[in-house]
């Protein structure tokens, strides 16, 4: 009887007659209150009615009665995930897999939800999706999702293979055509990318993301008119992120009036990338030599909501950038930005440049960036070097670009950027705009390794080119010769090292990155791993002294208390606004260097360190610390 009612109710449920199904489940529970199936299914109807909490109570009750109810666990995990409780959802998927290790749905869910934005958990997510794909080889969506993760993991060929497999299984899967197009574009197979993205557009001409991706492709081909048309179409179709691309392309085309009009249209709209638009507005006004107007405008905009919120940080950054451009007092420019807590890369650059310029003026030495001495030679530049990424990110981009520029016989022109001011570099300032070159990482690397024997691409503006894939020993001495701090900074960067040498013979410098790593899902280095490693190492060292570098010293210091860690505050007066450079310098001078997972900052320091006898870093898979060789 109960079984008959449940079967009929389930049929109603599947047919979308939710209220009728719920009534029948309740009827079952009146006579059989411990019926786990009815509790689970009633919970689902509650969820469908938007009553999440009641749904969870009912499903939990069902699982207490029948812990092996796999469907109930999967549904509970979905509810938990939708409610933002990823950890609890993970626990449910793991329980499902403990019951049924070949449950494709659980592996798929675990894989889809495990990769953080910054790459934490990505290897595990890939493993889970591979298993899901083996268990459900007919599922195109699994191959597609796996392809996306593999692309993020720099496994481009495998990523392309996955998207192709997804399309063999379902040739109408739009996202796989896009995934394939984007992966081929990253590989610089622009012809293949165009075919894939056109296929996507012909399947769904009203999908804005396709036009955005086609815009990126046209932009890569330096077809600015075509890129503009695509980005405009994406923006018209409601994709807010396309708006700043429209403005950027108009600026590339020299259509400043049209760019300004587009900014006026877009800036008030919800969803607009206001931060980027304000940077573009600054560039537009500076290029038009409209500095007084810029000062007045950004002063006003700092107090006005744009697209629903205030963007004071970007506006204050623009004002400090104006100060620097006009040669005004850098102390005021630095002071304006020093109290701000932000991840904005442009703010980081301007704040650091202002602080360095303040020091230079206090020291009374002159620094003039050179003009391009050989304007007839081919050029390369990167207009993003000062506003996409922070210190180490930009330095690592510089290394890739300079190696490529030298190989191709180009002059590398750089905008004002922190590495250019901190290190003893004398690259010329940009002598004029160059056509854009986005998505260049793979091509630059392939040219350096000799894998790509094609004609050299020169006279381009490399947009966020990113980094070398490998750091071969052959580059080591050349890179180290470029990246030496200017001797004038010695009064600020040497004292912490001198203090450490005065109190110990072996400097062990460990960097623990926190800050936005937690927020954006980057791999987090556990302090306990370093503590365990130090307990073994410490007794073997000659008068060791531990230096701790972190963007969150209060959070990590206590864990190391048994080693009496020294921080910058203990070691020397801080270099206002540039404390991270003092930490960086200690890391480049230590005898033993411990880096943070996925941190370009400490990886770079380890690569520049000429005295370290040991470099170590976290092994995220094994959960411990292991040695690594910075140049292989």
């Amino acid at each position, binding site marked *: 009887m109960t079984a008959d009612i449940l079967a009929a109710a389930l049929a109603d449920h599947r047919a979308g007659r939710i209220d009728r199904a719920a009534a029948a489940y309740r009827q079952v529970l009146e006579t059989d209150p411990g019926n786990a199936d009815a509790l689970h299914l009633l919970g689902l109807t509650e969820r469908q009615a938007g009553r999440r909490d009641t749904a969870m109570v009912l499903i939990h009750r069902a699982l207490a009665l029948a812990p092996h109810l796999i469907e109930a666990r999967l549904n509970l995990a979905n509810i938990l995930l939708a409610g933002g409780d990823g950890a609890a959802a993970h*626990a449910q998927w*793991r*329980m499902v897999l*403990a*019951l*049924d*290790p*070949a449950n494709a749905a659980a592996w798929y869910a675990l894989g889809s939800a495990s990769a953080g934005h910054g790459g934490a958990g990505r290897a595990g997510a890939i493993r889970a999706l591979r298993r899901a794909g*083996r268990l459900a080889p007919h599922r195109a969506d699994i191959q597609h999702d796996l392809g996306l993760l593999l692309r993020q993991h720099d496994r481009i060929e495998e990523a392309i293979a996955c998207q192709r497999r997804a399309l063999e299984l379902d040739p109408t899967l739009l996202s796989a055509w896009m995934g394939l197009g984007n992966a081929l574009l990253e590989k610089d197979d622009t012809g293949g990318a165009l075919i894939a993205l056109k296929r996507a557009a012909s399947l769904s001409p009203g999908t804005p993301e396709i036009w955005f991706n086609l815009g990126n492709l046209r932009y890569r081909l330096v077809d600015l008119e075509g890129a503009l048309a695509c980005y405009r179409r994406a923006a018209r179709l409601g994709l807010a992120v396309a708006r700043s691309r429209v403005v950027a392309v108009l600026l590339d085309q020299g259509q400043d009036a049209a760019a300004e009009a587009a900014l006026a249209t877009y800036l008030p709209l919800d969803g607009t990338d206001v931060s980027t638009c304000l940077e573009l507005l600054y560039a537009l006004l500076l290029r038009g030599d409209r500095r007084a107007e810029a000062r007045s405008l950004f002063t006003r905009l700092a107090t006005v909501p744009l697209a629903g919120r205030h963007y004071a940080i970007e506006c204050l950054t623009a004002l400090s950038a104006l100060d620097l451009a006009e040669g005004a007092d850098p102390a005021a420019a630095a002071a304006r930005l020093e109290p701000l807590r932000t991840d904005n890369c442009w703010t980081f650059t301007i704040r650091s440049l202002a602080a360095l310029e303040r020091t230079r003026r206090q020291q009374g030495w002159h620094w003039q960036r050179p003009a391009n001495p050989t304007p007839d030679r081919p050029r390369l530049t990167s207009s993003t070097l000062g506003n996409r990424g922070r210190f180490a990110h930009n330095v690592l981009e510089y290394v890739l670009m300079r190696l490529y520029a030298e190989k191709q016989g180009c002059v590398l022109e750089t905008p004002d950027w922190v590495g250019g001011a901190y290190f003893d570099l004398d690259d010329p300032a940009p002598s004029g705009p160059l056509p854009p070159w986005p998505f260049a990482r793979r091509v630059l690397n392939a040219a350096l390794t000799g894998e790509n024997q094609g004609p050299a691409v020169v006279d381009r503006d490399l947009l966020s080119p990113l980094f070398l894939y490998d750091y071969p020993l052959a580059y080591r001495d050349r890179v180290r010769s470029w990246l030496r701090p200017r001797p004038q900074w010695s009064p600020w960067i040497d004292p912490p090292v001198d203090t450490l040498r005065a109190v110990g013979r072996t400097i062990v410098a460990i960097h623990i990155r926190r800050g936005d790593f937690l927020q954006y899902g980057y791999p987090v280095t556990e302090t306990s791993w370093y503590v365990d490693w130090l307990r073994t190492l410490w007794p073997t060292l000659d008068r060791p002294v531990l230096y701790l570098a972190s963007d969150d010293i209060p959070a990590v210091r206590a864990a190391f208390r048994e080693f009496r860690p020294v921080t910058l505050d203990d070691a020397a007066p801080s270099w206002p606004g540039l404390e991270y450079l003092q930490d960086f310098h200690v890391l480049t001078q230590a005898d033993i260097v411990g880096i943070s997972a996925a941190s370009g900052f400490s990886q770079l320091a380890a690569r520049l360190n000429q005295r370290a006898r040991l470099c170590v870093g976290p092994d995220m898979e094994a959960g411990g610390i292991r040695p690594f060789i910075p140049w292989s």
Partner: protein
Amino acid sequence: MGYYDKVEETWQLSDAARDYVQKAGRAVEATELWEKLFALSPLVDTERTLRESPKLDRIFLKSVYGLHYSAELKDWIPFRHGAVDLTDESNI
């Protein structure tokens, strides 16, 4: 070691079987996999496997898990052959 860790080691044995077959580049009989891989694994319950799966298409591990050959997927897929207790989440 929790249940999920045991699931993980079962899958790793499955991965090893798949890699063996891929490297061989030919169809590999269950008996060959048994001799070259499964029987050598400390995870495998040899006695039970030989007793309950004479064709060697079901490999019982000492844990509650095992591998069976799926003719449909042409792959060695984990399964569970014992009870699990989910009342204590620290076991997972």
